[in-house]
């Protein structure tokens, strides 16, 4: 990792959608502390929402006994968010392309696409508890917050 690391904030959340609001508020605080503008904060917040929703819905199957790990940290070049669940694991390569014509009118399957659009790095791995650990990184100091929109 480059630059000076900032001690991460670590939270364990129960698998309730209401906790997404709490996490987003915390992220907003971190973003403002780091001097990120509102636009950047909005898109990182959206990626965080998608990551937590996936962990709660698909990872932990909304089981309130299962927890979601949220870590917000990074260094002076990146904001790094980790979201871990206690589910059975996940194969991101099996997710359908939401831009494919046959998938365009599906009611689900866009969350990972949005994360990849709004963040600079999205990495899925196996967490220590056996579930999925998702790592999201955003380069600081970049103005490109909507890669997909700008490329379209």
């Amino acid at each position, binding site marked *: 990792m480059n630059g000076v690391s900032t001690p991460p904030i670590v939270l364990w959340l129960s698998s309730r*959608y*209401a906790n*997404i609001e709490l996490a987003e508020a915390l992220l907003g605080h971190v973003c403002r502390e780091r001097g990120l503008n509102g636009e950047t904060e*909005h898109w990182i*917040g*959206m990626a965080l*929402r*998608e990551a937590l*929703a996936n962990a709660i*819905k698909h990872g932990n199957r909304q089981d309130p006994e299962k927890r979601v790990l949220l870590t917000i940290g990074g260094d002076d070049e990146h904001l790094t968010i980790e979201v871990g669940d206690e589910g059975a694991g996940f194969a991101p390569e099996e997710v359908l392309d*939401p*831009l494919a014509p046959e998938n*365009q*009118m*599906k*009611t*689900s*399957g*866009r*969350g990972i*696409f*949005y994360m990849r*659009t709004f963040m600079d790095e999205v990495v899925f791995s196996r967490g220590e508890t056996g579930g999925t650990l998702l790592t999201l990184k955003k380069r600081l100091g970049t103005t490109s917050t*909507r890669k*997909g*929109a700008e490329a*379209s």
Partner: protein
Amino acid sequence: MSKTVTTRDSGDIKIIELHGKITIGSGDLQMREGIHAALAAGAKKIIVDMKDVTTIDSSGVGELVGCYTTATHRGAKLKLMNLPPKISDVLTVTQLITVFDVYNDEKDAVASFA
């Protein structure tokens, strides 16, 4: 807490106004209920006003797509208006902006049904 969905009529057009967050577990379901209630009441012309939407996530987008499909299957038309830039961006990156009929203001949206 203020309502996520309010409805009003403009002639034979049902205007469904969304407010705040259209996200998983709260606003997304309320939006679906509001649009489905309008369809159940026989509405054939629906405009969803997104002026006051602050955030929409993939779940909200999915519900919106589902409502569009349901409306079409029931012989109704569902159109969008007053998209804030961030909401427009979310629909643009998934190319859904080309699926929906989107209008900049109510005057144009209402006139499109004439």
